[in-house]
């Protein structure tokens, strides 16, 4: 076997070409939206790129850019992302340290002040029990955010592992899993919640999270399965297989990084819906129960007094709506950044 010599080999006469006045990087990824011709315009046709940084050519100054870093660059410029990101950061902050912007306990109520409106020190007024609506709304964020985050993590983990493996290996396991997801899709979420959670006595967030994971994983599993199957068909997976790469290597190195984007997007959007699902279940009385603080409980408690004290209903529902919207907007922005072709 011949050894490649480290010194440069004799080249074709036209191998040493001064860098022409363009950088391939700009063209190769410019999603001009002008159809294939435009993309190819700059991506196609090439030469031996032997001279680093000719007079006008591509020098090493050009930074390597991964698709992730491109996505991040896109996100930072997207106002939707900035707005939703700031809202979410604020939510996370107040759920970790609700005391930072409140000055009393959410459980300290004064019946004498029931249904009273806004007054100094109590900007959102009082609810039917005479509790401070502002404090309760702030503390309610903690429940909502932790239920949302934990449920999403659980769903994403379980769903993507099951769906990913099924999509990768196919066969009988895949068929069985597909039928199981079909069955789960047939269960109406609210009815399922009413039935399953009504037998639970514990008043922590865990049964609610468990229920959401149980009913939520098929959604992610389907997405993960589909995107793994799509990624699996790419030639680079075949190329790795032809090199003799093991299944675990192919899954972790080649398929997972390319299949994870849709899962992230769907999970982000789902996070918003889990928060509203928690509120729904609590409203129906099967989720969390007083004395725990949650937007759903407060909305439920305030609804009989909607005529006399609408503020007690509006503030927690407004907070809920803004939170859900923020996560859905974030999901949208992330999708745009991860898949520019969709735009």
């Amino acid at each position: 076997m011949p050894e490649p010599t480290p010194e440069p080999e004799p080249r074709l006469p036209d191998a040493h070409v001064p860098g022409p006045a363009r950088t391939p990087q700009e063209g190769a990824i410019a999603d001009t939206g002008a159809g294939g011709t435009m993309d190819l315009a700059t991506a196609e046709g090439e030469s031996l790129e032997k001279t680093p940084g000719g007079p006008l050519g591509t020098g090493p100054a050009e930074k390597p850019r991964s698709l992730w870093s491109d996505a991040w660059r896109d996100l930072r410029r997207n106002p939707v992302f900035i707005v939703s990101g700031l809202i979410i950061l604020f939510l996370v902050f107040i759920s970790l340290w609700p005391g930072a912007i409140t000055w009393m306990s959410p459980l300290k109520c004064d019946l004498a002040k029931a249904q009273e409106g806004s007054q100094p020190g109590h900007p959102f007024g009082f609810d039917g029990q005479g509790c401070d609506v502002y404090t309760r709304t702030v503390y309610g964020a903690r429940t909502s955010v932790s239920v949302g985050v934990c449920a999403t993590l659980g769903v994403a983990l379980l769903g993507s592992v099951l769906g990913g493996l099924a999509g990768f290996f196919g066969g009988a396991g895949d068929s069985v899993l597909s039928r199981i997801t079909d069955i789960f899709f047939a269960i109406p979420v609210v009815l399922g919640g009413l039935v399953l959670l009504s037998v639970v006595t514990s008043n922590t967030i865990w049964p609610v999270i468990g229920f959401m994971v149980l009913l939520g994983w098929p959604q992610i599993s389907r997405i993960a399965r589909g995107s793994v199957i799509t990624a699996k068909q790419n030639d680079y997976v075949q190329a790795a297989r032809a090199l003799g790469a093991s299944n675990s290597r192919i899954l972790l190195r080649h398929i997972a990084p390319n299949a994870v984007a849709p899962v992230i997007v769907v999970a982000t959007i789902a996070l918003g819906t889990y928060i509203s699902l928690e509120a729904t279940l609590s409203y129906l009385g099967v989720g969390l129960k007083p004395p725990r603080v949650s937007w759903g409980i407060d909305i439920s408690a305030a609804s009989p007094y909607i005529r006399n004290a609408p503020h007690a209903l509006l503030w927690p529902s407004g907070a809920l709506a803004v939170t859900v919207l923020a996560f859905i907007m974030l999901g949208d922005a992330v999708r745009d950044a991860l898949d520019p072709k969709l735009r």
Partner: protein
Amino acid sequence: MLLEVRDLQVEFRTRDGIAKAVNGVSYAVDAGETLAVLGESGSGKSVTAQAVMGILDIPPGRITGGEILFQGRDLLKLKEDERRKVRGAEMAMIFQDALSSLNPVLSVGDQLGEMFVVHRGMSRKDARTKAVELMDHVRIPAARERVKDYPHQFSGGMRQRIMIAMALALEPALIIADEPTTALDVTVQAQVMDLLAELQREYHMGLILITHDLGVVADVADRIAVMYAGRIVESAPVHDIYKAPAHPYTRGLLDSIPRLDQKGQELYAIKGLPPNLMNIPPGCAFNPRCPMAQDVCRTDVPPLYEVSGERRSACHFWRECLHD
């Protein structure tokens, strides 16, 4: 002249700047004539055709100048609804990918008949009869039985025939075929190209054939316009260009094809990269890749020099190129 494009300019606004896709293209086609527009991807050949057809995506695209004279009228000055009447009825287009150009949920008979119902106000039944006639005409076997079939039930070559039938339905004066046979196999390619040429003769239509394949051009074209970086660099009757190209880019293309009838040693390859359309080199766009480039090529944009009667070349040194 059936169609005359004059000094057409098209640009695209993108995230990273303005891409100048077409920079002053002029060409003309007469009835019964075949003009081949030759170029590599990104040369602007398809964008020009889309502008002529009026199917350019605007935005991001924008026509910044020029005229498109079709049967004496400037299409760019027409209102959208007048333009729509021209499209389909007086000029039609055939695309590369027949499968995605046909509606998968309608039978081919319905799609063909649609043209007559919409443009000619025929009844469904008459339209169906016309559809069968058309399918017969493009030599689809057993047209009467197959008229109810869906696009996916046809092979690639048959689908392209259906596309041709659709384009011909209203007997347009001009057909633009954008890489009509690129997706087809060689033997089917020959069938489809033959059919197209024959129908063109029959209807005495003008045909603009957009392609990157020098072989296809040599087979059917009367005249060629070679495009590079949004400009026509050479235009000539087909025989002249293959005998002695008057532009170094054309010559490079011709030299880089391996020929069936000669086994070469090393293929000639055009060096360098095609220009970025956002940053086209000053002077002649081809100068960084040109073996004949001189100082003047880096500063002065070459006009289309008249080489002879019908020949034009946008090279300052076309004489040297021709006689080399």
